[in-house]
């Protein structure tokens, strides 16, 4: 092979674009650890590496919003925080019909989607790390065991739970029951469920780690103005800045990772908010742009050495995209509920989070409290519906309780992120296309879960229960999966690219399978473990 794949010529602007206040600027030619994204994965890696004295540049595509900037208003917050750059969809999933350019509901801002996450923090279960072994053959599913086990991850789960301040763990108290939970938990008890509680949940019930207790304002999806909810925005990013080793560059979108003639990555090219191209030299690169943007960036970084995309000799970059089996149930009662008051998702039922083939499907699911305001409920409760069937749901708003279904969906090679070369974004770059079809196992699990929701709410006197279809994806997983064998996946058990020794993927893209649990805790645990590995490898001169 010849030279690397950097953009030739003089088009690259010299100075770095826009360091955030508190940054310690790093020169463009200094070989830093360059971290792309500042959410659960990127923000955590940045803090762990800077704490160890390693200079880091964090390239964050979105702006640096803080608590004072957030809105207690669903659409205003959505416009402010959500990733709204052009995307396309394909496949038979209903999102492709109802929200064709919004496959995912994730955040473009410092802190990434931790500023939007609900807060539920169950761990993955032991068998969910080895589903090929436990579930066996499932037609059409690309099952694979993880190259790590729950035992290996357990100490990192401990650290992640302490960082987040998960309720019900390590001495953190439970959140109190809010109105939506009172309905949910009473229903659970009456149908015979036992494993329900108001957590584990990553929002403070009492002051912890410099952050206040929840005031139950009901707007944690909208950034949490009170700062009671853990996010990398309130914890890891400011602490990384305080080390003096971080150069945080908001509104800087990575567009290409370059490599040298030897095949090691050597820089990241990125656009600042005005579209000027910059180059930051890198000793190591950590990609943490969430499961749509991370593979997109690798695919956009194709070169003569990596003709199908960087680190894609397996052909698995972008494949095995998972979004969880989801759905919601909204139940109407004859008395007030006022589900919008209080912590949005501080209620979890775990009884169905098990592998029990007698139910007719592999894997399991959780049920979790969920509330939307009228503004969002109108768009999402039954997209496209109008007439009295629709307005009856809205009229019952004050008497409505809600829950979310979240379970393991089966990885499939054909569910994938690709570059759509027919549609370009605001920079003229190919947009990501998100293709998704439910696996029959996902459909069977969803039907079971809807029936469970009917039973729960029926047991406490619901007049009706509406089965709301999946929203645009909030849990985006698996597009750069971990594998023991380089032929099966993109990264190894540390999240290190099989093909490129100093390239890491640090977000939920690395998940070999999706498990049933909300993924943020596991992303944080994996990122802490990965950062420790990178620190060790750097110290040994191995990167």
């Amino acid at each position: 092979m010849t030279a690397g794949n950097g953009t030739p010529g003089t088009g690259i602007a010299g100075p770095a674009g826009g360091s955030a206040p508190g940054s310690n600027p790093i020169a463009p030619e200094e070989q830093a650890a360059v971290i792309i994204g500042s959410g659960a994965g990127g923000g955590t890696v940045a803090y762990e590496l800077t704490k160890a004295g390693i200079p880091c540049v964090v390239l964050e595509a979105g702006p640096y919003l803080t608590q004072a900037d957030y809105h207690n208003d669903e659409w205003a917050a959505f416009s402010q925080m959500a990733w709204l750059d052009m995307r396309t969809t394909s496949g038979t999933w209903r999102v492709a019909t109802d929200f064709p350019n919004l496959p995912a509901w994730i955040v473009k801002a410092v802190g990434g989607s931790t500023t939007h996450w609900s807060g539920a923090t169950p761990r993955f279960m032991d068998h969910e790390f080895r589903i090929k072994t436990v579930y066996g053959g499932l037609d059409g599913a690309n099952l694979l065991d993880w190259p790590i086990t729950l035992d290996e991850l357990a100490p990192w789960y401990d650290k992640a739970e302490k960082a987040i301040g998960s309720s019900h763990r390590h001495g953190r108290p439970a959140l109190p029951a809010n109105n939506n939970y009172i309905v949910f938990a009473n229903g659970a008890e009456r149908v015979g469920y036992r494993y329900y509680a108001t957590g584990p949940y990553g929002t403070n019930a009492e002051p912890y780690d410099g952050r206040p207790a929840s005031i139950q304002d009901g707007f944690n999806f909208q950034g949490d103005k009170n700062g009671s909810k853990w996010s990398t925005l309130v914890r890891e990013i400011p602490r990384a800045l305080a080390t003096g080793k971080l150069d945080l560059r908001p509104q800087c979108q990575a567009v290409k990772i370059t490599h040298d003639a030897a095949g090691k990555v050597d820089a990241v090219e990125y656009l600042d908010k005005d579209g000027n191209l910059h180059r930051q030299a890198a000793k190591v690169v950590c990609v943490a742009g969430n499961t749509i943007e991370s593979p997109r960036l690798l695919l956009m970084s194709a070169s003569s050495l990596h003709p199908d995309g960087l680190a894609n000799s397996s052909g698995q970059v972008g494949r095995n995209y998972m979004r969880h089996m989801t759905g919601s149930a909204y139940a109407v009662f004859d008395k007030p509920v006022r589900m919008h008051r209080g912590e949005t998702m501080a209620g979890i039922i775990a009884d169905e989070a098990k592998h029990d083939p007698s139910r007719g499907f592999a894997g399991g699911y959780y049920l979790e409290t969920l509330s939307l305001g009228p503004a969002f409920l109108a768009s999402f409760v039954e997209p496209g519906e109008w007439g009295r069937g629709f307005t009856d749901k809205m009229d019952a708003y004050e008497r409505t309780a809600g829950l979310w279904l979240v379970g393991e969906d089966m990885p499939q090679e054909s569910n994938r992120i690709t570059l759509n070369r027919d549609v370009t974004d605001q920079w003229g770059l190919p947009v990501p296309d998100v293709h998704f079809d439910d696996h029959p196992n996902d459909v069977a699990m969803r039907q079971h879960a809807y029936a469970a929701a009917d039973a729960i709410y029926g047991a406490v006197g619901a007049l009706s229960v509406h089965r709301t279809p999946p929203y645009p994806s909030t849990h985006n997983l698996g597009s750069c999966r971990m594998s023991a064998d380089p032929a099966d996946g993109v990264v190894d058990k540390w999240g290190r690219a099989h093909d490129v020794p100093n390239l890491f993927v640090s977000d939920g893209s690395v998940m070999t399978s999706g498990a049933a649990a909300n993924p943020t805790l596991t992303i944080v645990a994996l990122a802490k473990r990965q950062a420790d590995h990178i620190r060790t490898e750097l110290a040994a001169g191995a990167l």
Partner: protein
Amino acid sequence: MPDSDPQTSTAPEALSPEQEATLLRMLRVAYPHDRFPDAPYVRTVKTIVDADTDGVVADGLAALNEAAGGDFGSLSESEATAVIERMSRTPFFKLVHATTVVALYDDHEVWDLLGYEGESFDKGGYLHRGFDDLDWLPKPRVEEFDGPPRVEIVQQAGTGTGSGS
């Protein structure tokens, strides 16, 4: 939303009072809330007109009247619903629907009518304002179950007993 470029954008054409009345009637039929006054619907009419950059509303209203045999406003609710149903695949209806589900239900008067209380942070959240005031069910346990741990793998019948992990 950013201001449109005056050189390239099409200024939405104002509707006549008759056209506005037809659109208002259409909204009250398609999104019927009997206890709502006209005001939030009227505001939604204006938002639809502002969103009509492709100029489909005037023709859509004409088509609505035509499908109604001349005067959409004279139809009963069930007749009017049937007419709207026949037009529900048109760009006109899609614009009306996409705009209404956002604008009507983001209207603060509608929030009040539905019992939604909006912004709460500046009022101290709901911690002392009823986050747990539901009184028709008992207060449930908030701690995790303190009995045996959950069985995570249930063996098929005849292949052994369940085993936790």
